[in-house]
């Protein structure tokens, strides 16, 4: 993040600080005038900025919510209602926080799919990708624990179902579960530790995302062509070009968030969570939030509990191996005629899994879920390596600034 040519600042205070702590030049070199960025980035590259915004929104609203929330089994549900009714604009804080989590995941999933489409995980950006997957895993843990805090029926039973997954571990499973709960069932001690961790983890995400940005700036972002910037002509400074380009996407993201917050704040939530947690009464269908549904479908597609847990873990862990499972040396799907179709089939597969995750796991949905689960893993383990070996990529353009090789590329193809 450091580096770049030393800038001369006019402001004396800035100069004084810069001499002792070169923070201004570090920012310039990260998202400023000294960050050369490929000039052909499209709007799909803006999601990183949206994600940063989402994290800040979650932390900011969360800090204020924590001032009024009480992490105790007997008081949590009532304290959330206190926030909704008696705290000034408490309803706004809570609805922004609850819907902000959905914005966060939606942006993260698009960000990840962009990386998959354009091969952003390929050398030399494998670590950048892996750090991103680490962030995803922490995000999931944070979101899950946050969902437990309102202590409604879905909160309680989601906590029960998910913590019980650990009991599938052979020999020590039940001891681990008891240790996680801080007792013999999900109860106040569980809620209190979840609250503590839910407050801690966003700051861990913040730290790890700095690593993500650091790794990003070693080789710079990829671009829709997947070829490296060769000359100055291929790049523009991040500021003002991409700051201006991404601000409108941030505006759009805020419009979508505001629409949900003000007009459909409960669209993505579940009615059962407005019933206080009751350990003696199970809701008819325990479903997680929408962003966990594909993984939930994978979990439930296996008749064996341990098997389900293993596949569930593997469905995320396999992302760590993606840089090595994809054997193609061409990054961008733009030049990969075969992979391109498999990419969209994969997207469809994940959407199908999401639908299955919301259904009762029996009959047709269960069968579809099993097939979609098999395909999910086949995409990574079979399709990606084989497509990489057998696919004939289209010729790559010479450089970013000369993509208008259309005539040239056509000529090459015709010659072949």
């Amino acid at each position: 993040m450091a580096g770049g040519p030393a800038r001369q600042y006019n402001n004396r205070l800035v100069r004084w600080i810069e001499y002792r702590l070169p923070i201004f030049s570090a920012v310039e070199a990260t998202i400023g005038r000294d960050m050369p960025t490929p000039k052909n980035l499209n709007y799909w590259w803006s999601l990183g900025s949206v994600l940063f915004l989402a994290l800040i929104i979650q932390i900011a609203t969360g800090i204020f919510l924590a001032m009024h929330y009480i992490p105790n089994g007997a008081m949590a549900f009532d304290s959330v209602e206190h926030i909704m009714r008696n705290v000034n604009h408490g309803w706004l804080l809570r609805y922004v926080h609850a819907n902000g989590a959905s914005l966060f995941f939606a942006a993260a999933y698009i960000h990840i799919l962009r990386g998959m489409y354009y091969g952003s995980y390929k050398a030399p950006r494998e670590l950048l990708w892996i750090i991103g997957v680490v962030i995803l895993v922490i995000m999931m843990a944070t979101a899950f624990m946050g969902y437990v805090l309102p202590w409604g029926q879905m909160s309680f039973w989601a906590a029960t179902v998910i913590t019980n997954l650990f009991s599938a571990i052979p020999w020590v499973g039940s001891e681990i579960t008891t240790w996680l709960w801080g007792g013999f069932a999900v109860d106040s001690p569980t809620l209190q530790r979840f609250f503590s961790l839910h407050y801690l983890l966003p700051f861990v995400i913040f730290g790890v995302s700095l690593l993500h940005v650091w790794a990003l700036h070693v080789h710079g972002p990829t671009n829709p062509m997947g070829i490296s910037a060769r000359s100055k002509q291929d790049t523009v400074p991040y500021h003002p070009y991409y700051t201006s380009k991404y601000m409108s996407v941030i505006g759009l993201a805020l419009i979508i968030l505001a629409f949900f917050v003000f007009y459909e704040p409960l669209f993505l939530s579940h009615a059962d969570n407005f019933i206080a947690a009751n350990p003696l009464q199970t809701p008819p269908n325990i479903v997680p939030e929408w962003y966990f549904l594909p993984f939930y479908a994978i979990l439930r597609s296996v008749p064996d509990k341990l098997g389900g847990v293993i596949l569930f873990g593997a469905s995320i862990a396999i992302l760590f191996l993606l840089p090595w499972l994809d054997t193609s040396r061409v990054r961008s799907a733009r030049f990969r005629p075969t992979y391109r179709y498999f990419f969209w089939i994969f997207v469809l597969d994940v959407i199908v899994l999401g639908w299955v995750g919301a259904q009762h796991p029996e009959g047709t949905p269960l069968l579809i879920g099993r097939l979609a689960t098999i395909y999910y893993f086949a995409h990574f383990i079979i399709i990606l390596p084989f497509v990489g070996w057998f696919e004939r990529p289209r010729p790559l353009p010479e450089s970013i600034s000369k993509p208008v090789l259309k005539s040239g590329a056509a000529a090459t193809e015709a010659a072949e």
Partner: protein
Amino acid sequence: MTRLRGMLAAAAVTLALAGGADRALAAEAEVAPPKHDWSFYGLFGTFERPALQRGYKVYKDVCSACHSMKFVAFRNLVDIGFTEAEAKALAEEYQVAGEPDEFGDPTTRPARLADAFPSPYANEQAARSANGGALPPDLSLITKARENGPDYVRALLVGYKDAPSGVAMAPGMNYNEYFPGHQIAMAAPLSEGIIEYADGTDASVEQMAEDVATFLHWAANPELERRHSMGFQTMIFLILLTILFWFVKQRVWRELDH
């Protein structure tokens, strides 16, 4: 207790993971309540004050005999169009527990504006024993705690029928078209002429059901009107801001050869 909870939890997890045996029950529940055109739906939706006040009367005279509403305070009644003096007078109709007196004996005092609506029963056991074992749910959040809450509440209140032949009713249960499983412990609470509205509106069962559903939706979403008006301002602001951002981008990139 903890052991029982653990066992229940294990059973629930098995159910959740392996698919519900309660599926039959869920299937029976699928009688969708008819959609109603509520005044509070839509981008500019608001509550009609006369309907809210009539709904409060239905709640107070009928529902509150068995159902608590612990998250709503008397001071909130000002929001539905009562004056502060009227709300105070309504509060003082109730006696609530006061501070212990100088000898340490419990006392009661009239309710104040700051007090939540008092519960009809001292505790869950008392509520169950007075209602044939069933617990009347707290109504503060009822329209949020049910799918299509306002429609459901309204439909439920007018959905009482004679049980179709062939349906074996459990003792003390009533047949209701819209209740999951169709057997509800609550007897039909509304009937023609049970109350008289102060504003002269005909208190038909349909009218009372609609009014009380409106009131309950307000009780669950007291911020709704503020939320809608603030949402409109926020959306206008954000849309203008985004358009400006877009023009800035056009302006910045115009000079670049790309």
